[in-house]
């Protein structure tokens, strides 16, 4: 019997035992598909975090300092001055405050309230910053200009729009030179930033930036506690953080007369990487378990049919099958079932990953890692083939009469 015939025999056997073939495939499909989906989702999550980080830019230091009421000195102003004084290390410094009271923003017939959370992806926020806000937060100017030093000094009624805010308010019209109304006060749009292009970045994109000197009117003249410092390099970031901590430590004993915190998104990036390592480990475990479950399914169905298959082998030997042709047939049979199952698993896995990306990861297109996919496929197929071959190897060396007697 040649190979062609062995193939035909195997296909005939698969087709004639649809239920068994299907159940075997199912184990493999489940194993492979679940591994592919899970790996894709976790990788997608990591990618999203990194994109988010990237959009925020490197070497961004966030400084937060707060003194209890009645403490001497005004840490807010001192801190700002100190930050501006680190000229050797920084590219820019800005106060960064979000206005939390409900503000009405109007343009033409459109009205928005900053505390309207019905559709958070369309919610506008008002932020206060300096002329260096764009540099500090890694924005790219799309048109017009940034806030100017004078705008801040004179508390000019001007604003710069984030890419999202521009689109929400103006669709695709150029907003520069238009006037919007913030709590009925006219503000001239002087510029706008490119959108990050990332979904889930609405807090960066849907922003209306005003000079921070509006803190007095829009924020009840509370002290500004938050600053963003953009350092020149990673080394400068570390240096700047050390200096800022030393500076703030000279005024504030945390818990006694206030709090402060200085951190950079470089730390965060390290965290994301650590976290992604953790996730990979957890994932490996989960992937292992689902492969195992699929594998046990395959084993089960293969072993349950050993008796039946042993009798079948007895019959085949009695009518003239050689040991070799039985093994080849069983090998092809198992390989074909497992291979098809594995391919279906990959297909379903990719589809599942795309769906998961769409609904869980803001429309991100997830491509499964090829290493994991090939690994899961190979594992399932090897397992299936081993257990599929088991009765053939065991029974084909028996005397036909002993195989026929199997119970």
């Amino acid at each position, binding site marked *: 019997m040649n190979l062609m015939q062995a193939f035909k025999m195997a296909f005939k056997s698969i087709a004639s035992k649809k239920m068994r073939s299907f159940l075997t495939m199912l184990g493999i499909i489940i194993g492979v598909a679940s591994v592919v989906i899970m790996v894709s989702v976790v990788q997608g999550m990591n990618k999203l975090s990194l994109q988010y980080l990237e959009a925020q830019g490197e070497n961004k230091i966030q400084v937060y300092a707060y003194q209890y009421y009645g403490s001497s000195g005004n840490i807010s102003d001192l801190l700002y001055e100190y930050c501006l004084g680190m000229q050797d290390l920084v590219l820019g410094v800005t106060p960064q405050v979000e206005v939390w009271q409900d503000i009405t923003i109007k343009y033409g017939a459109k009205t928005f309230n900053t505390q309207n959370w019905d559709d958070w992806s369309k919610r506008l926020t008002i932020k206060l910053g300096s002329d260096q806000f764009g540099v500090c937060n890694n924005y790219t100017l799309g048109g017009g200009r940034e806030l100017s030093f004078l705008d801040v000094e004179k508390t000019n009624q001007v604003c710069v729009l984030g890419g999202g805010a521009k689109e929400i308010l103006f669709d695709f019209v150029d907003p520069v030179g238009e006037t919007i109304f913030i709590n009925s006060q006219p503000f001239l749009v002087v510029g706008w930033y490119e959108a990050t292009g990332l979904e889930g970045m609405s807090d960066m994109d849907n922003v209306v930036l005003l000079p921070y000197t509006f803190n007095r009117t829009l924020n009840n003249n509370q002290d500004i506690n938050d600053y963003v410092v953009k350092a020149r390099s990673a080394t400068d970031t570390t240096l700047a953080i050390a200096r800022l901590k030393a500076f703030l430590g000279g005024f504030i004993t945390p818990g006694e007369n206030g709090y402060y915190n200085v951190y950079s998104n470089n730390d965060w990036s390290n965290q994301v990487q650590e976290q992604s390592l953790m996730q990979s480990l957890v994932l490996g475990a989960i992937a292992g378990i689902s492969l195992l479950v699929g594998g046990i399914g395959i084993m089960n169905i293969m072993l349950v049919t050993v008796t039946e298959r042993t009798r079948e082998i007895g019959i085949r030997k009695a*009518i003239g099958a050689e*040991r070799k*042709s039985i093994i080849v047939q069983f090998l092809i049979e198992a390989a074909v079932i497992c291979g098809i199952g594995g391919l279906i698993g990959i297909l379903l896995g990719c589809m599942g990953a795309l769906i998961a990306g769409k609904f869980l990861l803001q429309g991100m297109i997830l491509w499964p890692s090829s290493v994991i996919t090939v690994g899961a496929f190979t594992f399932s197929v090897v397992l299936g083939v081993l257990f599929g071959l088991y009765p053939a190897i065991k029974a084909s060396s028996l005397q036909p009469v002993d195989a026929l007697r199997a119970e």
Partner: protein
Amino acid sequence: MLIDIQNLYKIYNEGQESEVRALDGVSLQIDRGEFVAIVGASGSGKSTMMNVLGCLDVPTRGRYNLNGTDVTSLKDKDLARIRNREIGFIFQGYNLLQDLNALDNVILPLIYRGTSIFEREELAMAALARVGMDGRAHHRPSQMSGGQQQRVAIARAIATHPPIIMADEPTGALDSKTGRHVLSILQQLYREGTTILLITHDDGIAATAPRVVRLSDGKIISDAHQEVDWL
């Protein structure tokens, strides 16, 4: 001499408490073209004898020449060839593959023989037609009666036109009318020159065989030729 066994033993659990001498020093010669019934009570060693003669099992000791070849020294490949080309088996329990239809069951030995794909189906259909089962070619065993399944099994046994047919209680699971039909097929094959080895515990069936070998406790106790009415 087609079949020649000398001092053949098949001993299960040799040397143990539970030792069974299924064949206890048997010698037997069968010529080409004979019709031999092997009879005996249940447990007398008939099936063991057929299995050894059909190369489905190996003897514990003794010599077995088939067609002048010492089969005890043959390898799997040659034994498979003998089972495929020289001998057709008919079992009491039919031993059809349940998942294949009648035609595919009958085609199976032709595939192992290496018959060209263009001839297989024709040969298998011819074999089915010989036993009157061509109308059921596409039925599965589970959709057939016992007699029909046995006829398909006979078709499978004769598909490669083997010179020897060995049947182990082929009518054992059938009613007497169907049984007679199966016997008549064997008799027809005999007339065409096939050597028939028919195993039975039924003296009535044994009475239809030109030669009767009687077994008891693994030994041959008689071996006689007789007149039969169908010749």
